[in-house]
């Protein structure tokens, strides 16, 4: 009897799927639908878009952005963001390129990742211990880290010549899928696990949703903040390594505006800048969307400067959608109290 009552009724299941699932699905579906439209549009309008080579290249570009975007989603879910990822990306690419001439590729990659981790943790320490806004700290660090990159290279380019294995990070394929895409999928799976199935992920969302309540629940805010920014630093470093293996020649002027891309894909993917939750699937779709648009514009021989324009417009568009969505939800939630 009591067992029977414990079973959820059909109506409860319907409500659950209706209320929470549907909203979540719709959030990532929005950008997914947009992606399909743009891909179909590009295939028709831009001859040469729907070829194996171009699709592979688009996938690689998307993957590099997506990896950092996934890390950024954590920062945004926590109610902050990280403007220094572009600089971290370029510095870690330079570190990887430099170390490759001295040590094993594996060690060079490790060195780059540790550099990213260190900068990220430092960001987090400044934010939590000095009680500074993430905006100020990461904005400042964006300049500091780029300065370091320029100093280290003395403004020169660094070539990667003698490492074929390192190039495989970009050119390699497993089951016909480019390695960067697989790296991105691996990061995606790991971070999804982290966000949904660990106390760390839950605490991240708790802080973003209601900081005071998170404090009163006994969550160690400083530790979570430092960890999240450390995580963003690592993802930016992974993107840096991927970028180095894609270009095989790096200099300190790369990665300008990369932070804007990372934030845009996260927000476009359905992660609200007001914090509280993160949509990782959406981030991946949005990165694919962004890369598709860039690729189509390239093929159509649109001056690359227009890509900045498109990016900015997309970001504002995504924010407008997010605001409208929140207003809608707020209104429909006013129901019962």
């Amino acid at each position, binding site marked *: 009897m009591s067992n029977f009552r*414990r079973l959820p009724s059909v109506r409860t299941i319907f409500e659950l799927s209706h209320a929470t699932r549907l909203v979540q699905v719709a959030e990532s579906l929005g950008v997914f639908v947009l992606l399909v439209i743009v891909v179909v549009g590009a295939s028709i309008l831009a001859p040469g878009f729907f070829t194996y080579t171009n699709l592979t290249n688009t996938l690689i570009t998307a993957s590099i952005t997506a990896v950092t975007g996934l890390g950024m989603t954590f920062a945004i879910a926590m109610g902050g963001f990280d403007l220094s990822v572009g600089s971290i990306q370029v510095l870690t690419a330079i570190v990887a390129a430099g170390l490759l001439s001295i040590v094993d590729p594996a060690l060079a990659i490790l060195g780059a990742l540790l550099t990213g981790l260190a900068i990220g943790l430092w960001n987090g320490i400044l934010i939590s211990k000095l009680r500074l806004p993430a905006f100020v700290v990461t904005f400042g660090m964006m300049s500091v880290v780029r300065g370091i990159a320029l100093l280290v290279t003395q403004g020169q380019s660094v070539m990667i010549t003698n490492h074929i294995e390192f190039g495989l990070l970009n050119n390699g394929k497993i089951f016909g899928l480019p390695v960067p895409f697989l790296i991105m999928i691996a990061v995606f799976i790991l971070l999804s696990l982290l966000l949904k199935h660990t106390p760390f992920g839950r605490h991240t969302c*708790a802080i973003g949703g*209601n900081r005071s*309540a998170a*404090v009163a*629940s006994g969550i160690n805010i400083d530790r979570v903040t430092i960890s999240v920014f450390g995580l963003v630093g690592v993802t930016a470093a992974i993107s840096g390594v991927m970028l180095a293996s894609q270009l095989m020649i790096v200099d300190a002027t790369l990665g300008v505006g990369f932070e804007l891309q990372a934030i845009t894909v996260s927000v476009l993917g359905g992660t609200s800048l007001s914090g509280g939750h993160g949509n990782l699937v959406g981030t991946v779709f949005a990165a694919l969307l962004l890369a598709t648009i860039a690729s189509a514009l390239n093929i159509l021989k649109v001056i690359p400067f227009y890509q900045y324009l498109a990016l900015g417009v997309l970001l504002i568009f995504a924010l407008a959608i997010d605001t409208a969505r929140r207003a809608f939800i707020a*209104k429909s939630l006013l*129901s*019962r109290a």
Partner: protein
Amino acid sequence: MPRQKIGCAPTAETEMATGQASGGSPEPLLSLTGISKQFPGVRALDSVDFDLFPGEVHALVGENGAGKSTLINIISGLLHPTAGKICLAGHEVAFASSMQAQKAGISTITQEFNLVPQLTVAENIFLGREPTRRIGLLDWREIKRRASEILRELGLNVPLGQRVSYLSVGDRQLVEIAKALSLQFRIITMDEPTAALNATEVARLFAIIEKLKQRRVAVLYVSHRLGEIFRIADRVTVLRDGKRVDTRPVEGLTENDVVTMMLGRALKKEALIYQASPAAGEVALSIKSLSVPGFLSDISFDLRVGEVMGCAGLVGSGRYELTRTLFGLLRASGGTVEINGQILRVATPGDAIRRGIYMLPEERKVEGILPDLTVRENLLISAKRLFHRLSELLIDAKEEQNQYERMRKSLDIRASSSSQRITKLSGGNQQKVMLGRALTSESRILLLNEPTRGVDVGTRVEIHAAIRKLAEQGCAVIVSSTDIPELVSVSDRCLVLSRGRMNGLLDRIQINEDNITALAIGQQITADNQ
């Protein structure tokens, strides 16, 4: 237009009520007929009739989830009814937004104020409609003159230039009412206006409501505190499960009648009667001359295992700060806190929880609920044992669901599923989740602030029973509350603070409303009161 007039004509029944309630004016200012509101899966209101006459205070009561908030939101234009008709002064209206309702003369004063904390009292009162001089500059003289006129009428004694963020909750509420008056509203709805007020502020609010009545303003008054309804309301409408049970003149009703209408049955007697707990055990928490600069000085008492200690005090008495200090949210400047004979040092709530102390925050919305998380996640955010056997990193989903189910049953949390968003729950159920959070932290010392704020009568009794049960099971509990009847009904002993000092520690036999009130306002209790 004439057709609408006919549609909105008062029924025989309401005409009778008119005679009793407002003596004269034959037409209701606001009348709702057959209002229904359907949400996915829930019928929040089921053809409810409601009317409001000029110069009357009409109370709306019901348990959480009965539909009170939905009805208020419909009247204030935030929600649209699925069916039914709203007539304002004889004309059918349909508000598309709360702005339209305000333009039509309906003001809603809720627990969340629509004030800008950084602006001054005067600036807030005229926000968005500032009197200006010819070239568009603010007319400060006019602003000050009109604001002080309204404040004088309300008996609110605060400087006009004071920033709202420095005002007490009670004063902020009066600023909100001042704003409503400056707009010449005809209808003011008040949703739980006394939830955060102390006794003096409540008395002041009631005096103002009397003045509003004289000005022929209609007041829709929602409160869980039934005593208040008998003090100020002319009529009362009871809702239950989205339906109107009845609308009656308050005169001739008793509190028991109203409770019976709300619950659909008589309240169980024994639930209200205090049951003495077994002799309190050893000292769980020993506080010796604790001081917090500006808030508390020289506080000393022992909290024992198995006892519920009440804590009373007006705003500014240090009551709010006491539990926050013990929980690591405020730093003490002097004195010691001992737990099991060891000196306790807590710098953060995390430390306190590790030492077995948990605090239920005073304001659920501000420090309690995590709005983006589910009911289950909210309940278990401070849980101790949630981890997968293999790793400290992963959450064990099965263990999580088990713990949730256990709490849901023992506290009778009514949620459609464990993955429902917490914000979709009624206030009473949210409060139960907060209480569950304290329990799953496995703390033995519980600091409960306002455990039944904004909660209906039925849930209130359930929560009080749960608190008593916790003490019996070996917890040491402090209940800090502005609700004196609550302290009387749950406390074994009651600490009363006044201006940062302990003005008394009442034993069970001394605990009554008069003694607590007397000590809280700084008096000493006399021998015959004891």
